[in-house]
């Protein structure tokens, strides 16, 4: 139930933040050199009408990535579809003709790897944003905002690198690890990703929390509720 609430709360918050907070309440998504992760990389600025949030152009990638993620699939099939509600109990008779991921629509979960490839694009820009935020108005600074952006980029990198599909693509698809020099390199990468993959659930939750938190921090900073504590040389 915690899972259902957590994932649900994130979706509601991200939609509110992406679509409503800026256009309706006039709270900017960028302030003092910090850009909200929901909007990175920023595209279409100056072309889009005021009511159209540029987050829409980006957010479908991480949302698609998480929706088709093996861990989240497990979590929401159990929590939202009661399929199964728990292990070794009878299921409520909500549906007949079960075919799950063998048929449309859930057969589309097989496209997870496409979202994986795409997810590396915003991930690159998140590192870039974090790095750029160290230099603001012609001065260097180490603000709490930068630390949050770096932390977020780190957790999202952990999440993406612990992905089951990546583990497969890097080495899991091989049958012989020792056959050539190339496969031996892939084997050692696969071993490393396997280690990360064992904690995929933890990466998933921590990074989900960190994205939401980074956005919230920047939004609240923009409302002037508090100042960004920073070290300046």
């Amino acid at each position, binding site marked *: 139930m915690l899972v259902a609430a957590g994932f649900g709360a994130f979706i509601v918050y991200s939609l509110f933040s992406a679509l409503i907070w800026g256009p309706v309440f006039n709270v900017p998504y960028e302030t003092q050199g910090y850009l909200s992760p929901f909007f990175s990389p920023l595209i279409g600025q100056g072309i889009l009408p005021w009511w159209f949030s540029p987050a829409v152009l980006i957010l479908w990638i991480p949302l698609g990535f998480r929706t088709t993620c093996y861990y989240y699939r497990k979590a929401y099939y159990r929590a939202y579809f009661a399929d199964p509600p728990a292990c070794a109990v009878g299921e409520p008779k909500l549906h007949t003709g079960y075919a799950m991921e063998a048929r449309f629509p859930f057969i589309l979960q097989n496209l997870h*790897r*496409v979202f994986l490839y795409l997810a590396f694009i915003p991930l690159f820009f998140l590192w870039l944003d974090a790095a750029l935020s160290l230099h603001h108005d012609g001065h260097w600074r180490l603000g709490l905002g930068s630390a949050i952006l770096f932390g977020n980029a780190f957790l999202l990198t952990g999440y993406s690198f612990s992905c089951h599909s990546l583990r497969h693509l890097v080495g899991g698809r091989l049958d012989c690890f020792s056959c050539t020099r190339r496969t031996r390199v892939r084997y050692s990468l696969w071993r490393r990703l396997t280690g990360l993959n064992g904690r995929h659930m933890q990466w998933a939750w921590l990074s989900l929390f960190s994205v939401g938190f980074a956005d919230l921090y920047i939004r609240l900073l923009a409302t002037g509720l508090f100042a960004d504590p920073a070290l300046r040389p």
Partner: protein
Amino acid sequence: MPDATLRVYRGTPGQPAHFQDFQVPVDEGMVVLDALHWIQAHRAPDLAVRWNCKAAKCGSCSTEINGKPALTCKARLSDFAPGETIVVEPMRTFPLIRDLVTDVSWNYEVNRRIQPFTPPADVPQSEWRWQQQDIERVQEFRKCIECFLCQDVCHVLRSHETDNLFIGPRFLVRAAGLEMHPMDTADRLPFLKDEGGTGYCNITKCCTEVCPEHIKITDNAIIPLKERIADRYYDPFRMIWRRLRGTKAPAPAPAATTKA
């Protein structure tokens, strides 16, 4: 030590079933199977129980204990709260024979549908070579004791009419071990996608939770198979690539063969 209370399922197909309670004297180190043997010896000689090794290695003694699929020979009485009633039932996914014994023969039929290990015909066995790193994944799957607890707990087999559409976690483990074997040349992916029903698994991991051999069934066998199937049938980039190169489907991976 206080006595343990066991509530045991009694019944045969076609007869109304009931639970029968027994008070069993407890000794140090006793497992549920010991308690069932005590009941057989002292209270109910007609109680049907299947077991063989009493060492969690033969996979015969599978039941459901307090609603959780488990081996009776591995479940220690000391793991239950003092005074807690221990409910022992047969596995619900398989047809009942009597009391705690079920008919698991469906699993053997499924097993026969999987193409067995197929080494290259032209390499004599004396020349087979592979390294530890090639076989580690397969070794995990070889630990399976065929207790069928994973088949019992899997909601696809338990709660849906899918017995002939889905081979179940145990056999996805077996198939994964064959598919990943460096000397195997067979291609089971079409079978696994269609008749095997790999898509029916929705990776909810109950099988992994109950496996007494702690095989990471979902993460190490099923998800990698789903990914291999996605490689072949659902990856748009690979499809385009294959079209450009004019190959329909990739040839099965070559065996490790005689590399020293």
